[in-house]
């Protein structure tokens, strides 16, 4: 088991390295750098000025060198400009030659400086992740229990009225992406034309002061899309368990139906959905980006859109590291959890 986890961590590290290199390569292509120079310097810079600006800040070094600098295995780029300002990859506004460290990379715990937000990447990502973590917590609180209940209720009597209506419900939710359900919810519950005005159409205030009124719609929007899928998986697993021999035995010896479902079937039926819930995280990440844009909730997904839209290289890299980490760790947890829940499987 220890070896298995160790090997998975190795693969994880390799994946993260490859991924960040791909992101690094794509964001450092010349047209992207040109855009960065123009947004940071001056929109009307000529081609020569752009080149000089980029050259002075070390953007025109070979990609591998720059990647090494970001990782922290190559000394950072520094240069004193003609007008005496000291610039480089490790500098911050106002720093001088003396107080600038020689290496500044991820290995040194330095995630870089965001060109959009004018702040340390580490602080930004931490703060935004906090917001998104809060959102995700409530999404999971809403999504997982309701999906499991829907799935178990639908699966305990296959083909019954309850099964058919709940299955239809879960198919409809899987067919409704967040930007559709979000728009429909905003239209119905917040607009002045329909007049229900039960909720607020933006979640901007929810960052400081989350209330049911301004926070429920974003949570519901993310939860609904993921819910249908988990419910369908739970239903499939439940119907399979309900046809098993030991359930028939329990029925024949006269155990009541609620007891069969609660005591005999439920535990075995929940093994498969556990994996599905874990593997659902990467999808939730997507939903988070859409919903945060739609409801203007300034979390991780919102930061991703801002960073990508403005080619903020170091922020983008940090964001991709975090999301890769989330994806791979949830995969690992789902594998390990599966073994613990299902004693028939052993990792060799």
């Amino acid at each position: 088991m220890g070896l298995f986890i160790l090997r998975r961590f190795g693969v994880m590290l390799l994946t993260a390295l490859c991924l960040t290199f791909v992101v690094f390569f794509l964001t450092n292509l010349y047209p992207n750098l040109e855009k960065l120079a123009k947004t940071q310097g001056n929109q009307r810079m000529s081609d020569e000025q752009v080149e000089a600006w980029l050259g002075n800040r070390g953007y025109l070094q070979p990609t591998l060198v720059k990647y090494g600098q970001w990782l922290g295995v190559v000394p950072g780029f520094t240069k004193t400009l003609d007008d005496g300002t000291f610039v480089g990859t490790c500098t911050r506004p106002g720093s001088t030659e003396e107080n600038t460290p020689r290496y500044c990379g991820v290995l040194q715990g330095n995630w870089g400086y965001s060109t959009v937000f004018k702040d340390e990447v580490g602080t930004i990502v931490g703060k935004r992740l906090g917001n998104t973590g809060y959102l995700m917590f409530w999404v999971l609180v809403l999504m997982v229990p309701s999906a499991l209940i829907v799935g178990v209720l639908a699966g305990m009597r296959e083909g019954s009225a309850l099964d058919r209506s709940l299955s239809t419900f879960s198919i409809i939710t899987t067919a409704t992406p967040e930007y559709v359900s979000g728009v429909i919810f905003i239209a119905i519950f917040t607009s002045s034309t329909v007049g229900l005005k039960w909720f607020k159409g933006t979640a901007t205030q929810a960052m400081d002061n989350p209330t049911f009124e301004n926070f429920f719609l974003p949570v519901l929007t993310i939860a609904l899309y993921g819910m249908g899928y988990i419910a369908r998986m739970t239903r499939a697993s439940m119907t399979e368990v309900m046809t098993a021999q030991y359930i028939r035995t329990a029925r024949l010896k006269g155990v009541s139906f609620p007891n069969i479902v609660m005591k005999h079937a439920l535990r075995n039926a929940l093994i498969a959905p556990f994996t599905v819930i874990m593997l659902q995280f990467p999808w939730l990440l997507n939903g988070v980006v859409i919903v945060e844009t739609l409801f203007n909730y300034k979390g991780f997904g919102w930061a991703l859109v801002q960073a990508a839209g403005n080619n903020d290289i170091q922020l983008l890299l940090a964001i991709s590291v975090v999301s890769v980490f989330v994806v791979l760790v949830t995969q690992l947890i789902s594998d390990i959890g599966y073994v613990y829940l299902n004693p028939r499987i052993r990792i060799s």
Partner: protein
Amino acid sequence: MEPLTWTGSIAFLNPLLMIAIAALLLSIVIWIVGSIFLPEAPLSINMDGTVSSGSGLRGLTQNALRFSFIACVALALAYIVLGIVMGTSAGIVGAVSQQFLPVWLSLIILYAMSIAFKRRLGLYGKLFDSPIGMIGFGLVMFWVFTGIFGALDLIVTHDPLVQLSGMKNKVPGTPLPTAEEGEYAWYLLGGDNLARDVFSRMVKGAWIVVQIAPLATLFAFMVGITLGLPAGYYGGRLDTFLSFLANLILAFPVILLFYLLVTPEIVATGVPNYMAAVLFLFPILFIGVLLNSRYYTRPKFRTPLLIGVLGVAIWLYLSLISTSGFIINTDSYRIWGLPTYLDLFDIPGGILVVFVSVVFVNSPTVFRIVRGLALDIKTRDYVAAAQTRGEGPWYIMLWEILPNARGPLIVDFCLRIGYTTILLGTLGFFGLGLPPESPDWGSTINEGRKLLSIYLHPALPPAFALLSLVLGLNLLADGLREESLKD
């Protein structure tokens, strides 16, 4: 011109529809509750030893449900039929159903033909045995026909890009201030923020989806199958390497990938063109290997066949990837492609990028599914039999394993078209790839959502259109799964 109301002179149907819908909802609730609490239908043993079951209270709830459902469907049909006959005098509903006349006709013809010959049509015919599959197929074909006829300018009432003054944010059914001769006199579903016709934009948006989604899914399947079969069949190093690559792409958040691939800056570097050149190679490889592995024992037949098929395929491939004479055309360097006089069609840069990135995002998942299926099927006896016969590995993969994996693959194909539709919408929602004035559903939703608290009509039609298409594809996949399990 008078503004149109929603139902015009067939408004007498509205209370009936309300009653029918209320009855339907009520009977659904009673049906569900009844299925839990009411006793099973009683069985009675007759004198001659047979058993018959009465309908009981449960049967009553089922009958109530059936009749109220039939009433709802009949009323909806009445709206459509009366609308077709009466046109704009039946209000917006009537006018819209009249505009969709070619779609209704094609649907009726398609269903009549399919149901008449369903026993001879294999899996497709069996679809018409399952009500869920039929509903799903109907929804999908509705949008397919809408897309096709919309592209032929049959359904649309106005040019989706033209702005008419005075129509900004106007509610559905508003007449044009100055309607010229031969021009449709109303904006049926209102005008958007730039005074364009919402209805025509929605119809034109269907064509973009119908064009890109199935084709992109097909390409993703070609890539996934061509790589997944050997990975599952051979295993070992090849499998480890390919699985690592697939997991690498899957670990990317899709939206980050889109932001990295589908920006004008990246298009300027030519990266999408390189990706297109590589990804579009897989169908040629697939077809070539497919035919070669089957017919290589008959070189006299094989050689001309391969020359013909691959010639056409390569010609299509080159015209696909080369635009105005170049495969890659950036500021710093260019690579020559097919000369323009041989180039069959040009794909606008925006569409090509969208297409490539959607294929790129979908193919690792297909790869994993195909690999899993191949791993499972390669242990079967018929594969061992083929190996003993001395068949080549590619013959076994493509002509023994693949046909036996078709059931799950067809179902996943339907689901994946739906997912691709959602991805296209996501791209539009973030304003990536397609030009900003393009009428695709994602962009229209994105534009409409900004004024959503005041004007609902620009955002909702494309949202419901996308919802119904994806729902149709999901139901279709469900129906197919059910029917293919019956074999």
